[in-house]
C-alpha cells in the first residue's frame, strides 16, 4: 500500500515537473523560465496522501462496493413509481421556481441556461441514447437553429414564434443532409464525421462574413414578445407587456418570461421523447442500438430509421438554438465550439443513456454546479473535465442506467380484459 502510494507520488512528481515546476514567463527578450519546484512537491504530496486515503477507504468499504456491482442488464422488474414521482416533483419545482422568495434575477438566468442544456440533452438523447448513434457534432444543429432565427428575424423582421418552426425544420434538413451519406458508417467513424461536420459549420460561420458577419457575430437580435406584447419600458405605437397588464415595468419580467419559454420547450421535448419511445419508430431505434443486423433481418430499414432519429434530434437542437439566440440577443461562432458538443454528450451519457431524469441530474451536476463557481474561471473547466472522468469511473453506465420497458404484458392484460395468459388466443 505504502509502496503503491510512493510510486504514485513519483509519477505525479514526474508529471508535474515540466509543466508545474517551470513556468514560461513573458519577458522583454521573449520567453524566460520561472521556477516553482515547491509545486511539484505539493503535487506529489497530494497524490501520495490521496492514494493512501483511497486505499484505506477501499479496504474499509470493500464489502459495500462488492454489493453495489450492477447486474449485466438492469431492467426494472416492476414499474418504478419512484422515478415518476421524482419527475413530477421536478416539474412542479421548475414551474414554481420564479415565485420562490430566493429566486433573484441571477438564479432565474442560470436556471434558464441550465434548461437549455437539459433540452439539448433530451434532444441528443434521441440520437445517442435511443438510436445509439454517436454524434459529436450536435452543436452544429444548435448553431443552425440560432443563426437561422437571427438571420430570419433580422432580414424579414419575422417574430420569434414564427421563426421557431422554420429554425427547427432547417436544422432537421441539415441533419438529413449530413445523415444521408454518413449513417451507414460504423459507430466510431460516425462520431468522427459528425465531429468534422461540427467544425465545418463553425468554420463556415466564421468565414462567410457577408452572411454571418464572421467572428463579430450578429447582435441586436429581436427579443421574443408575449403574444405580440414586447417587454420594453415603452414602445412607441405599441402596447408593452407591463402596460397591458397594468404592472410596473421591470426587466425581470422578461427574464421570467424567457425562463417559462424554455421550460415549455424543454418539457415539450421531453413529452415528445417519452411518447415516441412507445411507438414503433422509437422501439426500432432502440432495437437498432442493440443489434442492427437483427433489425435488418426483421425488415426494418436501418438507414431510414437512423435518419429519422438524426433529423428529430437536430430539430430539437434547432429549437434550442433559436431560443438561445433570442435570449442572448447576440450570437457568434464562439458559442458553438466542440466543447459544447462534448458537454451535451457528457450530459446524455452521464445521465445514463436513455434516461430522461438522469439527464436532468447530469445537467445540474455538469452545468449547474460549475455555474456557481464562475469566479474561479480557470479552474472551472478543469473541474468540469475532472468530474466527467470521475463520474465515468464511478458509474460507467451513467447515473440512472436502468431501463423501463416500453410495453408490458402484465399492465396490458389489466387494461384489456383480465384473462389468463393461457386463454389469450389469436
Amino acid at each position, binding site marked *: 500500500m505504502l509502496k503503491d502510494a510512493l510510486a504514485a507520488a513519483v*509519477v505525479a512528481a*514526474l*508529471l508535474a*515537473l*515540466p*509543466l*508545474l515546476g*517551470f*513556468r*514560461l514567463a*513573458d519577458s522583454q527578450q*521573449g*520567453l*524566460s*523560465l520561472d521556477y516553482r519546484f515547491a509545486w511539484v512537491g505539493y503535487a506529489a504530496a497530494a497524490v501520495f496522501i490521496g492514494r493512501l486515503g483511497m486505499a484505506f477507504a477501499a479496504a474499509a468499504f470493500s464489502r459495500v462496493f462488492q454489493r453495489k456491482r450492477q447486474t449485466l442488464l438492469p431492467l426494472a422488474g416492476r414499474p418504478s413509481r419512484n422515478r415518476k414521482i421524482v419527475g413530477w416533483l421536478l416539474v412542479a419545482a421548475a414551474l414554481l421556481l420564479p415565485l420562490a422568495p430566493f429566486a433573484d434575477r441571477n438564479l432565474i438566468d442560470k436556471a434558464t441556461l441550465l434548461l437549455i442544456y437539459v433540452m439539448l440533452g433530451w434532444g441528443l438523447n434521441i440520437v*445517442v441514447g435511443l438510436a445509439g448513434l*454517436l454524434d459529436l457534432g450536435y452543436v452544429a444543429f444548435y448553431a443552425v437553429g440560432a443563426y437561422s432565427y437571427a438571420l430570419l428575424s433580422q432580414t424579414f423582421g419575422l417574430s420569434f414564434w414564427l421563426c421557431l418552426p422554420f429554425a427547427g425544420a432547417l436544422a432537421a434538413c441539415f441533419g438529413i443532409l449530413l445523415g444521408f*451519406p*454518413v449513417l451507414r*458508417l*460504423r*459507430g*466510431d*467513424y460516425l*462520431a*468522427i*464525421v459528425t*465531429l*468534422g*461536420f461540427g*467544425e*465545418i459549420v463553425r*468554420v*463556415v460561420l*466564421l*468565414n462567410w462574413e457577408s452572411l454571418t458577419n464572421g467572428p463579430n457575430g450578429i447582435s441586436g437580435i429581436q427579443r421574443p414578445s408575449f403574444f405580440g406584447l414586447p417587454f420594453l419600458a415603452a414602445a412607441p405605437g405599441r402596447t408593452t407587456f407591463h402596460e397591458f397588464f397594468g404592472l410596473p415595468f421591470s426587466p425581470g419580467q422578461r427574464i421570467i418570461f424567457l425562463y417559462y419559454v424554455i421550460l415549455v420547450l424543454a418539457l415539450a421535448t421531453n413529452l415528445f421523447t417519452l411518447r415516441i419511445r412507445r411507438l414503433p419508430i422509437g422501439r426500432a431505434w432502440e432495437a437498432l442500438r442493440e443489434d442492427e*443486423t437483427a433489425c435488418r433481418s426483421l425488415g426494418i430499414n436501418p438507414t431510414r430509421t437512423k435518419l429519422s432519429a438524426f433529423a428529430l434530434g437536430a430539430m430539437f437542437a434547432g429549437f434550442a438554438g433559436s431560443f438561445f439566440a433570442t435570449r442572448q440577443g447576440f450570437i457568434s461562432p464562439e458559442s458553438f465550439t*466542440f*466543447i459544447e458538443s*462534448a458537454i451535451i*454528450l*457528457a450530459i446524455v*451519457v*452521464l445521465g445514463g*443513456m436513455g434516461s430522461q431524469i438522469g439527464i436532468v441530474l447530469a445537467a445540474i451536476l455538469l452545468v449547474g454546479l460549475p455555474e456557481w463557481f464562475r469566479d474561479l474561471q*480557470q*479552474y472551472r*473547466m*478543469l473541474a*468540469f*473535465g*475532472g*468530474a*466527467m*472522468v470521475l463520474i*465515468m*469511473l464511478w458509474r*460507467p*453506465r451513467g447515473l440512472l442506467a436502468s431501463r423501463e420497458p416500453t410495453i408490458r404484458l402484465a399492465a396490458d392484460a389489466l387494461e384489456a380484459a383480465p384473462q389468463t395468459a393461457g386463454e389469450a388466443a389469436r
Partner: protein
Amino acid sequence: MDYFIQQLINGVTLGAIYGLIAIGYTMVYGIIGMINFAHGDIYMIGAFISLVGFLLMGVLGISYLPLALFTVLLLSMLLTAVYGWAVERIAYRPLRGSFKLAPLISAIGMSIVLENYVQVAQGARVKPLPPIVHGGFELSAANADYHVTLSYLQVVIVLVTVGLMAGFTYVITRTPLGRAQRATEQDMTMASLLGVNVDRVVSTTFVLGAALAAVAGLMVTLYYGVIDFYIGFIAGMKAFTAAVLGGIGSLPGAMLGGLLIGLIEAFWSAYFSIEYKDVAVFSILVLVLIFRPTGLLGRPEIEKV
C-alpha cells in the same frame, strides 16, 4: 512550378507531423478499439515540454545545437510518455471492457482536463520561441523565376520521421513486444490466456504513442515557433482523420494518411483559400469514408453474421 514544389515540400513536412500523431491514434484504436480523444492534448503537452526544454538548455548554457536538440527530444519523449501512461492508467484502464461509450466520455473529459491544466499552469497566452534551426537549401535555377527553399529544419523533420517510422515498424514486426501487441490487437482475451500481459502491452502502446506525439510536438514548436494550449484539438482531429484515411489500425496507413492530409492542407491553402483548409480536410474524410470505409490501406471488413 516552383510554387508547386514549395507547397509540396511544406505539405510533406506538415504531413510528417500529422503522421506521427496519427500513429498514436491508430495503435490505440487497433488495440483497444477506442478513440483516444486526449491524444491531441498529449501532443500539445509534448510541445510545451519541448519548449520548456529548449529554454532550460539556454539556462544551462548548452549551445551546441545537435546536442541540445537531442537532449530536448529525449527529455520530451520521456516525460510525455509518462503523461500517456498516466492517462491510460487513470482514465481508461478501469473502464476497459465496460460500456462502449464510457471510455470515450472519459477521454473527452481527460482532454478537457489536460487542456485546462496547461492553461492554468502556463497561462493562456500564445508562447513564442525564436527560430533555433536556421538556414536551408536554396534551390534556384539559372533564371531567377525559379526559387524553392528547403530549410534544414524541414529536412530534419522528414528525416527524423522516416527514421522513427523505420524503427517503429521494426519493433512492431520483429520484436516479442510487437508480437504481443499484434496478438492483443487480434484478440485480447485469447492473448491474455496465452500469457501475454495485456495490461503491460496496452500501457506500452500508450507510452509509444505519446513518445511519438512528443516528437511531433517538438517539431511543431520548432517549425511554427508559436504554441498555445489549444493546438492539440485541431491537430488531434486532423491526425485522427489521417489515421482513418489511411485505414485505422494500419501503421503505414497512418503515415500515408498524415502525408495526404498535410499535402491537401498545403495545396488547398496555397491555391484556394486558407480559411477553408480544415473544411477541405474534413470533406475529404467524409468522401473517403463513404466510398472506402476501411481507409486506403485498411483491411476490408467482412460482416460476420
